């Protein structure tokens, strides 16, 4: 065993962390890939969804896994309205301004949460939170395994959606050539809003899967947002399989860095990858098209 006995469980733990990163990044890559903008509010929306799942559980006893079916549609609607009602009009359709608008949104959402729910850390108690699956080489917490499978499923569903449905084709058309898409009769504003809505729904799903093994504070989104950007850039903008593999890779990198460099330096590996990828291969590992 020796070295291997430590490394194998670390890699498995990293894969399950990476699955969560991938889930958060799936929504972002959809928004980033089509709208070509950085959505700084992504982490804040994740935080909001975590609070929503938390209150559904504590106030009405709805299990986080069941909450997926409530929060998914609810956050889809929220995202649609945010894009159509706030981001589009306030940014005048300019990329550099969308960045600032989403930053403003994230400031408002984060501090609203702070004002409403204080900065205390909250967790939920679930009977299955500490259940584990024995893989001989390592023990995997059950909720982590569920999140892992769900990340694979979500990536697959989104890929199918983009490849096979009319709306998916419209989204890809707008991502490639906005003006051309408009000329053939695609309602670009609607597609943008649908995209933002779908991305926000992904965040809600990620939040429901994350809550059983995680906590909620108004700042919780910050921990994920830069990792999500790294995942998206690593995987290639707008690529679902890229986001999935990118997320898994980053999860493993983080745990291995944490193992060998010490806990506090764990995320250094992620940012080092981020900077190197941005500098040397900004189209990502799976991104065929140039940025």
């Amino acid at each position, binding site marked *: 065993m020796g070295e291997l006995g430590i490394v194998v469980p670390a890699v498995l733990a990293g894969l399950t962390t990476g699955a969560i990163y991938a889930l958060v990044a799936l929504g972002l890559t959809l928004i980033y890939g089509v709208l*070509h*903008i*950085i959505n700084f509010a992504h982490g804040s929306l994740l935080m909001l969804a975590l609070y929503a799942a938390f209150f559904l559980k504590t106030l009405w006893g709805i299990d986080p896994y069941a909450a997926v079916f409530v929060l998914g549609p609810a956050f889809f609607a929220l995202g649609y309205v945010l894009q159509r009602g*706030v981001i589009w*009009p*306030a*940014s*005048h359709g300019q*990329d*550099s*301004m969308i*960045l*600032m*608008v989403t*930053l*403003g*949104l*994230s*400031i*408002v959402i*984060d*501090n*609203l*949460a*702070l*004002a409403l729910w*204080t*900065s205390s850390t909250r967790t939920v108690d679930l009977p299955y939170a500490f259940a584990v699956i024995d893989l001989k080489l390592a023990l995997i917490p059950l909720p982590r395994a569920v999140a892992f499978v769900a990340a694979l499923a979500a990536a697959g569903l989104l890929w199918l959606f983009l490849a096979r449905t009319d709306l998916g084709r419209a989204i890809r058309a707008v991502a490639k050539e906005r003006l051309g898409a408009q000329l053939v009769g695609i309602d670009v504003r609607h597609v943008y809003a649908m995209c933002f809505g779908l991305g926000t729904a992904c965040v809600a799903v990620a939040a429901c899967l994350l809550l059983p093994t995680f906590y909620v504070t*108004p700042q919780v989104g*910050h921990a994920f947002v*830069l990792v999500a*950007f*790294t995942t998206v*850039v690593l995987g290639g903008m707008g690529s679902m399989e890229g986001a999935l593999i990118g997320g898994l890779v980053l999860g493993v990198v983080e745990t291995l860095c944490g193992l060998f460099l*010490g806990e*506090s*330096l764990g*995320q*250094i590996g992620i*940012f*080092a990858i*981020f*900077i190197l990828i*941005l*500098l*040397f291969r*900004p189209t990502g590992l799976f991104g065929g098209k140039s*940025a």
Partner: protein
Amino acid sequence: MNPRLVVLWTVGLLVALALPHAVASNAWLNFWINTLMFAALGIAWNVLGGYGGQSSFGHAVFFGTGAYGTAVLQIKLGVPALLAAPAAIGLGALVGLFIGGVSFRYGLRGSYFALVTLAFAEVFRILVSSFAFTGAGFGMLIPLDQRPINLQFPSRFAFYYAALALVGIGLAASAMIERSRFGAYLVAIRENEEAAKALGIDVFRIKLGAIVLSAALAAAVGVFYAQYLLFVDAGSAFGPAISVEALLGPIVGGAGTMLGPLLGAIALHGLGEAAKAAMGPQPGLNLILQGLLLILMLRFLPEGLIGAIRRWRGHA
């Protein structure tokens, strides 16, 4: 200079000099020191982000380098603050040279540049909070020794005038940019980088010059912050809140204008203070209002307060 402008600037300067004595309260003085400090940071950001159009989302990396530079040099190496301060500013400029060097060499622009600066700030934050030499997770306390050689002063008024001087230096640098060939090149790059390159402008060197100047100014603000609070920690010196603070003022006030960042900082901090006075010290309230102000400004006055004033004067 036209005589009306001379009068305006003289009045402005006199008001600024008299301001801390107008109301005899510590809260009033603290408010202006804070506002001027962040105004100076906004002016620093504006050199690169406003005139140059390269929006950095990680200016905390330069601010933090200045703050930590002066703290580490004093505490670990026993250098007096009077020497540590210029060294820390130089260090900030070097970090700017490095980050600008790699990102502009590889042609990062727009959102990619924003992301890479954000990532550099995070890397610095994690590194600084991981090593004992930089105080690890606890931060660093600069020992109290109020002598001018330590850049520590018994009176808070001294800090007010120091912050005012920082703003003055920043405004002078902005004025020089607006009048110089370097500034004209910088604005040309912002408006159309390809065209600027085609006209023979050395785009890489001009952008590098802008980020080094911007970084040095931001590091100077960081030095001031460390000397004023006599405490630095990774989360507040390198954290995203500082990066956001750096760009909020210029965007609200008017990016790429000389007085925009100053006006923006006064508006944002004034709004926060007014909210506190009206509704009590509710956590997060001032930031909610600042975020809303940002969105509303982008929606209705995308050129910022300066743009609004110019438009109003154009109509009048």
